[in-house]
C-alpha cells in the first residue's frame, strides 16, 4: 500500500489478477498472468512481496491448497481479495477515473 493509503499500480494489477484467476491465484500463476495480460514482467520475489504485503494489510486472504497429486507434488498458497481489498481497489480506480475526467479533452492528451 502506498504512503497515501491507496494502492500502487502493481498492487492494483496483482489484486485484479487475483480476482481474475479465482481460486488458482498463487504467486507463479499471478506472475504469469501479469506477463500475459498486462505485459508486466516482474520478478518472482516482487510478486511474493506484493502478495504478502497485501495480505498483511488485510486486502488479500490466503490459504494453502492440498499438495498436487503427483510424486513430490507441492502445496500452493492461493490468494483471494477480501471485501476490504475489493473496496480499496474500487477507491483506487475512482481516484484514477476522477483524475482522468479532469484532464479529458486536454490538448496534450490528443483525442483522449
Amino acid at each position, binding site marked *: 500500500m502506498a504512503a497515501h493509503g491507496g494502492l500502487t499500480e502493481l498492487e492494483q494489477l496483482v489484486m485484479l489478477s487475483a480476482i481474475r484467476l479465482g481460486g488458482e491465484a498463487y504467486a507463479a500463476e499471478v506472475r504469469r498472468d501479469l506477463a500475459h495480460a498486462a505485459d508486466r514482467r516482474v*520478478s518472482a520475489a516482487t510478486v511474493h512481496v506484493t502478495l504478502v504485503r497485501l495480505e498483511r494489510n488485510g486486502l488479500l486472504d490466503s490459504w494453502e491448497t492440498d499438495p498436487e497429486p503427483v510424486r513430490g507434488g507441492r502445496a500452493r498458497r492461493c490468494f483471494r481479495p477480501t471485501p476490504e481489498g475489493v473496496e480499496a481497489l474500487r477507491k483506487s480506480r475512482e481516484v484514477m477515473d476522477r483524475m482522468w475526467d479532469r484532464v479529458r479533452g486536454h490538448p496534450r492528451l490528443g483525442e483522449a
Partner: protein
Amino acid sequence: MRRDPSGPGRRAREPRPPRLARRLLGRLLPAHRGDELIEDLAEEYAERASRSPWPIAGLWYWIQALRPSTRRFGRELSEVRTMRLGRHRVRGVAPRGLVDAIRAEIRFAFRSLRQRPGFSALVVATLGLGIGANTGIFTVVSGVLLSPLAYPDPDGLVVVGVEQAGGGSLDNMSLPDILDIEERVPSIATLVGYSGSTATLTGRGEPTLVPVGRVEKGLLSTFGLAPVLGRDIAPEESGAASAAVAVIGYGFWRDRLRSAPDVIGETLVLDGISFEIVGVAPPGFDFPGGTQLWYPRRIDPDDCARGCHTWWTIGRLARGATLSGARAELHAIAARLSDAFPDTNFEETFGIRTLRDEIVGEARTGLWLLLGAGLAVLLIACANVANLVLARAETRRGEAAVRTALGATRGRLVMTMLSESALLAVLGGGLGMAVAAGGVRALRGMSAGWVPRLDAVSIDAGVLAFTLLVVCGVTLAFGLSPALRMSRTTLVAGVRRSGREGAIGGGRWLRQGLIGAEMALAVVLLFGAGLMLRTFAAMYAVDPGFETEHILRADLTLPQASYPDLESIRSFYRTLPPSTGLRSAAPTRRGTSSSRDVPSPARARRSRPPSARSGRDTWRRCGFPWCAAATSSPRTIDRRSRWRWSTRPSRARCSATPTRSENGSGSRSISGSGIPTATSSGLWATCARRRSRRSPRPGSTCRTARPGRRS
C-alpha cells in the same frame, strides 16, 4: 537445519539450482512462507535449464537470489511472523514495523511477569533498593559537588586564609594581612574580610536573634551581584568612624519588612545600635550561610593588629589569573610579611582555594566513597537478579525451543528476554526514585551540617538522566547474558530440557561466576564498613584533653549596648552560674573545639615562642579564658603525654601567660586568666549537679587545645 525444497528426494531428475545460491536464499528467507518463493524459483530454473545451457539458467538463478526484492521479501515475512507470534491480529489488520513489535514484546513481558508475581516482586524490590541507593547518593553528589555555585563566574570566587601545616582547612586572617594581599597580589582583584555572628534585633516586634555578617566592605560586588534596592556597603563606610549602615537580605526584606519599596533609609536596631538600611541584597544571597543582614565591622587598627586573626575572607581572581599563579604570589608575600613581622607572621603562609572547594571541604571524599559503595551495592543487586533471571531462563528453554520451531529468530528471543529485563529495571527504577527521594529527605534531616549545600539538593533532570542510564545499564547487566543463553537453545536440546525444568546445564559456570563476583563485592563493602566503624570508634575514643562530662555548651550574644566593656561581661559570667545552676561558666569565641583548633605537630615545632609582651598583648585582645573559668580546678595534665601547643592566639584559647615548659621539648602549657572581649559568642559551663569522677587538683594547669601528637 534449513530445508532444501529443491533438494534430493523431490523431483530428483530435475536440474538442481546452484547449491551456494540455494543456501543464500535459505539464509535470506525465513522458513515460514519463504519456501514458496524458493520452490517457485526452483521450478522456473528447471524450465530454463531444460531450454538453455545450464550456466545461463544458473546465472539467472543467482540474479534472482541477489535481487533486492528477494531481501525485501525476507523482511516482509519477518514482519508477518512478528505479527503472528505476538497474536496481534485485530480486525484483520496486523501491526507493522519495529514499534509494533516492541509494543507486542512489552505486552508479552507484562503477561509473563504477572504470571510469576513472587519472582517479579523480589527482582523489583532488589533493583529498587540498588537503584534507589545510587540515585539518592548521586542526587547529593550532583547537588553538592557537580552543580556550580549560584553566582556569576563562580570559578573566580576564592577564599584566602592562613595555611595550616597539615594542609587542612584555611585559618582566619588579620585585617592588615588582608589589606596587604589585596594591594600587593595582582592575581586577586578584590579580597573582602568578613566575620559571621548574630545580633539581637529590637524595635520590630519581639526581640529576635538575626544572623549577621560583619564585613570589611560590601560583598555584593565581589560576588558579581547587584542589590535589588539601594546600594552596597561602600569601602569608606567601614572602620571605627564608619556610618552605621546595613544591607538587608531579600528574605529579611520580604518576611520582616513586607517587601516595602521605601525601605531604604529606614533604621534597624541591632544590639542596641541603630543602622540605616542602604540596600537590599538579591534573592538567594545569604553568604556566609544563612546571613540575613550585613553591616560594616568597626575596625580600630590600633586595637586589632596583625596578631588578631578574626577575619575570614572572600575574594575574586583577576581576569585571566589562575589559582596556581595566585598561590605563588601569596607564598611570596607571606615570606615577606614573615620577615617584616616576625612576632606575628613568623613562618606563616597563605593558602587559596576556590569557594566551592572551601564549602564542600572534606565532604567531597566521603561523598565519592559513598557513591562507590552505592555502585557496589547496585552490582551486587544486579548479580543477584542475574542469577534469578538465569535460573528462570533455564526453565524457559522449552518455550524458546517452541518459538524457534515456529520461526522465531535468535534476535527475537533476545528481544523477548531483554524486554522482560527492561520492564523489571524500569519498575525497579521507579521504586528506586521513590527510595532516593525519601533518602535525600532523611539525609537532610540527619546530616546535621556535615554535608554542605544540602538545601540545594533536589531530584532534577540530571538525576533523572542518571537513573535512566542506570536502568539501561542494569537491564544489560542482568538481562543480556540470560537472554543470549536462552537464544542459543537448540530445538532438540530445548525440548528435552523442558521436560526436566530447573536443569542448569552449561550455565553453571556463569552462575558460579556471578556468585563469586557478588561475594567479592560484598567482602569489599564489608571491609569498608568495618573500617569506617573502627574509625568512628577511634574518633570517639580520642581524649580531647579536658573533661567532657557535665560540660554544657550554649550560644549567646551579649548586646554591645548593655555590655560595653570587659568588666560588664566578666560580671555577667560571674553572676551566671548561681542563677542557672551551673558551677562555673566561661566564654569562648568558638563554641567547640574543632579540627581547626588542633595545632599540627609540625606547626607547633616551628612556632616561634612569643615574647612575653607580644603574646600577652595579643591574647588579652583576642583570647578567652574559657578553660580557666569553666574548670576552676582544672584537670591535671597527664605528664606521660607530650603535648605541643600553638602560640597563635586563634589556636590557644586558655589564657595569656606562658608559665612553664614541659618535659624539655619546647612545648608549653598555659595557665592563668584571660580577658574576654565584648563579642563573645560561645559559653562553656560545667554542670554543678554532679561532680566529675576525676576531680582536678587545684593549682594544676589547664590545656587549651587538643594535642597534635602523642608520644
